[in-house]
């Protein structure tokens, strides 16, 4: 049977890159379409009418949306190199931490650390530290959240493993320090060096320039 796998994505989006990481890990061939998010294509609007966002995976003409839903779909459809454990309890555990990262770590959350009144910025930083501490504790002595191999939580954590560092450079705000979070920093180093991952990271200088531009407006208004 001819498999047609299409991915509508955006070069700088961690959500979009998560899907590419999973596809690459599993050796799945796919066609990639870069979406201009300022001028959304008719395809994007057709495949994701509810949220109108990337990523969208289209498998044999049928769309799947929301990065975590897509990751699970990929894992259930292509069984090589599983990204979720087999045991139901461990699966629930992985889903919990993926959801935690997805909901509690966001560019918006990081941005709150550089915008607004000093009191609010400090509060946002405290919240960010609390969230990172949960992840530091969860990692324990494991190489990856998934154990010896990269799994769902690691892929979902791309936003912390890579995007956060670039954001820190663009904003001058340091959150993920080696003193506070040694395990998480080691994990981030391992993560970005892993072959299926490093090929799927947006170019750092391009991402840095984009984030600087986006933050520039905010800094100017302070």
């Amino acid at each position, binding site marked *: 049977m001819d498999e047609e796998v299409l991915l509508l994505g955006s070069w700088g989006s961690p959500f979009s890159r998560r899907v590419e990481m999973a596809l690459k890990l599993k050796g799945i061939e796919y066609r990639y379409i870069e979406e201009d998010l300022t001028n959304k294509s008719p395809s994007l609007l057709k495949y994701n009418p509810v949220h109108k966002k990337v990523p969208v995976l289209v498998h044999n003409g049928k769309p*799947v949306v929301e990065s975590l*839903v897509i990751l*699970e*779909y990929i894992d259930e459809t292509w069984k090589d190199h599983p990204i979720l454990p087999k045991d139901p*309890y461990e699966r*629930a555990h992985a889903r*919990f931490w993926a959801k935690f990262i997805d909901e509690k770590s966001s560019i918006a959350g990081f941005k709150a650390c550089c915008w607004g009144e000093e009191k609010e910025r400090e509060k946002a930083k405290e919240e960010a530290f609390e969230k990172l501490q*949960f992840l530091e504790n969860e990692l324990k002595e494991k190489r990856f959240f998934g154990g010896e191999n990269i799994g769902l939580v690691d892929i979902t954590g791309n936003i912390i493993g890579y995007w956060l560092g670039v954001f820190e450079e663009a904003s001058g705000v340091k959150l993920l320090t080696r003193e506070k979070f040694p395990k998480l920093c080691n994990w981030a180093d391992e993560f970005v060096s892993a072959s299926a991952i490093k090929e799927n990271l947006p170019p750092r200088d391009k991402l840095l320039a984009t984030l600087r531009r986006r933050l520039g407006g905010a800094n100017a208004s302070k």
Partner: protein
Amino acid sequence: MADEVVLLDFWASMFGMRVRIALAEKGIKYEYKEQDVFNKGPQLLQTNPVHKKVPVLIHNGKPVCESLIIVQYIDEVWKDKSPLLPSDPYQRAHAKFWADFVDKKVYEVSKRVWTSTKGEEREAAKKDYFEIFKILEGELGDKPYFGGETFGFVDLSLIPFYSWFYAIETFGEFNLEAECPKIIAWAKRCLHKEIVAKTLQDEKKVYEFVGQLRKMRGLE
């Protein structure tokens, strides 16, 4: 070996109701432990240190948190009876998408309505509330259930909110049936299912509870 299943929950929690429905569907015997959500006990804080919220399912001493994750766990462990999710990966993804939509949109917009003050704030919240439910009506279409011919994962994730409709309509001063008749028809259909009818809480009791919450926020 006998399974030990404990559920830490709060009677009015729509998230807790999802888990109660799932456990009943599978015929699982469990110990229900009502939590005081205003004065959280040590067991809740120990089993869900990250979010400190109900529901928490404790299976043979191991806690699982987050209602939709718990429901999927239940489906995977007790897999020989009454599947809660479809077996086809595409249909599963579709169900997970809509359950996720309910999670991300319905709770927040409902809260905005019952915590709003009269006037612009309330009107804006109501407008968004109707919009979310109209999107859900669109997804339901002419199907009897979101799951198709039978009650499924998306139905389970949304139906507990029905217990809160009366409270939200009364505080928001509107009639949901007038705006979204298909949703009310769907809800009434779900209520024909004994498990759902037994699990959903009395709407007047929920209304009183929401009244208390509003008082606590200085809204009454």
